[in-house]
């Protein structure tokens, strides 16, 4: 088996036709935002083939979780998609709660949704800055970080950490909201509404940016479904795949917000979906911030959690798409098998299909708008 794979591997990295050039993009490259390794075959500047090589930060989180208890494994999942750590944790606690058939207090549900949406904004902000940097504009990065810092400060005050919060616990959240939380979130909304128009001036309306992204990396609706593309990538191709709308969890079914769907399927559509989602997330936060119900922030749970024998699957919408948590329990205190269906993994698999025939510069635009987070892909 090993010998066979070796031969295939060599054949894949050698130029197969006259005039082809094979370039390694990554694992250390300014545009891959992490340790993604792409082997691209070029004909001049035109891309013939993109072949992702994964595994540079594969930590086998699924294997690690098999030896951690149901309280402990949640913190590890923050390290998968570290930009939407809250939402990853949310998916896990939802799955554990499904197994335990726990009823979550309404206050905890609202807090969870608020945190999810703040995380989504923070994640999209970082994406916006990093994507603009991929396309050669450096300044948006700093503007994006200004708003993101505010969210991080809010998180720091309530959850204790800035990036990998581990704030969700089975049965609710770890602590109650900080007394300043509501005021600071309102301040943030005001700051954000003042600054969001700048984003449009600086990037969205920019003619160079539009030319760089329109018609680049087109993914048709059928292909998007077939490749399992979810989140903004799927929605930009016209697939209705927002888990918050399709399979509402927590309080999402009581909220009014729009599922942003574009039909073009190109990089610009993906960009627009995320920019519009920022405003929808703000809308959700505005609805909830004054209506946080009083009550417990955590349901009563046993000290040692044991899931009944069976299989449990929960789906949540992270900033990048659909995260599935699949727990197989044998009735012990640790999961027998756990599988994370991460959105980035499926989105990345469409990269080759999307970038064939485009230029190197387009590859950066496509990767930028796919919003890849490498630990999410490698797990």
């Amino acid at each position, binding site marked *: 088996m090993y010998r066979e794979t070796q031969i295939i591997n060599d054949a894949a990295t050698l130029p197969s036709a006259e005039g082809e*050039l094979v*370039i390694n993009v990554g694992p250390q*490259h*300014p*545009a891959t935002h992490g340790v993604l390794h792409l082997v691209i075959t070029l004909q001049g*500047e035109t891309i013939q083939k993109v072949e992702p090589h994964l595994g540079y930060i594969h930590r086998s989180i699924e294997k690690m979780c098999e030896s951690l208890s149901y309280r402990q494994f949640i913190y590890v999942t923050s390290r998968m998609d570290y930009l939407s750590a809250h939402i990853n944790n949310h998916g896990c606690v939802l799955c554990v709660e499904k197994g335990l058939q726990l009823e979550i207090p309404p206050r905890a549900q609202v807090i969870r949704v608020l945190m999810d949406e703040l995380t989504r904004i923070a994640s999209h902000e970082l994406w916006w800055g990093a994507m*603009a*940097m*991929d*396309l*050669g*504009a*450096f*300044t948006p*990065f*700093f*503007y994006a970080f*200004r708003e993101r810092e505010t969210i991080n400060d809010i998180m720091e005050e309530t959850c204790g950490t800035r990036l990998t919060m581990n704030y969700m616990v089975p049965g609710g959240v770890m602590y109650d909201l900080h007394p300043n939380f509501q005021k600071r979130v309102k301040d943030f909304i005001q700051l954000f509404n003042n600054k969001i128009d700048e984003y449009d001036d*600086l*990037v969205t309306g*920019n003619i*160079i*940016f539009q*030319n*760089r992204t329109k018609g680049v990396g087109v993914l048709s609706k059928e292909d998007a479904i077939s490749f399992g593309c979810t989140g903004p990538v799927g929605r930009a191709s016209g697939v209705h795949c927002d888990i918050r709308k399709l399979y509402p969890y927590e309080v999402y079914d009581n909220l009014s917000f729009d599922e942003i769907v574009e039909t073009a399927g190109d990089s610009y559509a993906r960009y627009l979906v995320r920019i519009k989602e920022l405003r929808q997330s703000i809308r959700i936060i505005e609805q909830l911030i004054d209506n946080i119900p009083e009550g417990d922030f955590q349901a009563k749970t046993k000290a040692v959690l044991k899931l009944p024998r069976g299989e449990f699957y929960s789906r949540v919408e992270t900033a990048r798409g659909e995260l599935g948590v699949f727990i197989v329990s044998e009735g012990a205190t640790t999961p027998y098998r756990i599988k994370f269906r991460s959105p980035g993994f499926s989105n990345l698999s469409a990269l080759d299909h999307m970038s064939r025939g485009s*230029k*190197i*510069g*387009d*590859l*950066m635009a496509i990767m930028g708008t796919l919003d890849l987070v490498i630990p999410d892909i490698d797990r």
Partner: protein
Amino acid sequence: MFSLEYITDSIQHWLYSTFNPTMALLLECLIIILLVTAFFGVLGLVLVLMERKVAARMQIRLGPNRVGPKGMLQTTADTIKLMMKEGLTPDGADKFLFNLAPFIVMIAAMLVLAPIAFAKGFQIWDINIGVLYVSAVSSVSVIGILMAGWASNNKYSLLGAMRSGAQIVSYELSAGLSIISIVVLSGSLQISEIIASQQTGWWLFRGHIPVIIAFVIFIIAVTAETNRAPFDLAEAESELTAGFHTEYSGMKFALFFLAEYINIFIVCAIGATLFLGGWMPLHIGHWKGFNHIMDYIPSSVWFLGKTFFLIFLIMWFRWTFPRLRVDQLLSLEWKYLLPISMFNLLLVTLIAIMGWHF
């Protein structure tokens, strides 16, 4: 009116009266070489610092502020660091060309400095084909870039160099055409005469809209020619890591870096000379008093002020715009800039022939 002319004249007078003519000429050359080299060093440091400060202000940061007062010595420290670094040469590289390339780029940048008038009567070589010389010599640097890209034996470098070649060759055209429109108006290729022709007003203001269009095209074209963002495809950090100078380190990298900034200075100086009147003070029609006050500002300040304004403009572009794609870069030149500047040249010629300018 304060002028450097007296100083340069008196130095020349003293040299020729003390030594024999050959010796005096040699000494003059030596002084100029020293001056130019020192000027290069200082200019590089100042421009890099300026870029970092401008970028920082636009990006709501502070920028360098630790080394020296307000971070003034940051670039000096960086230069010392670069000088002390080991200059690596990759194993598969063509050693001779690899080491030669940064010097070619640097020498090309230095040569263009010759006909630029820094102040009234302060010019190294007032050659009678000054503008032609500038556009001819400035395109030599592309050879250095191609050489660097090829000799590095690195695919990123090669791609960057190829892009750079295509880019400089195409943008030379529209830069040249907009230079020609000023030549048509002033009727001379000599830098000093072009400046003298702007005695009554800068061409930018005298030449109606066509000259403004030519100015805009000139700025775009020279931004592309100096490989600056949004046309920095040859370096294209997020695509080609560092483009043609991926493999360079230490002082050889510093030479590329320095040459980039010197080139910016030169093209902006040319722009200031052609469109904004070089060292000529701002004169407005018949406002005698105003004109008189303007005359009191030294000519070197006028020249440097205009040049640095243009440099700021180019930096402003860099820190605002995303990068173009390589095919868009070429279609911008061939589909938009070149037709517009050709048509524009016709208009300018018409204005010049009919004498419609102010």
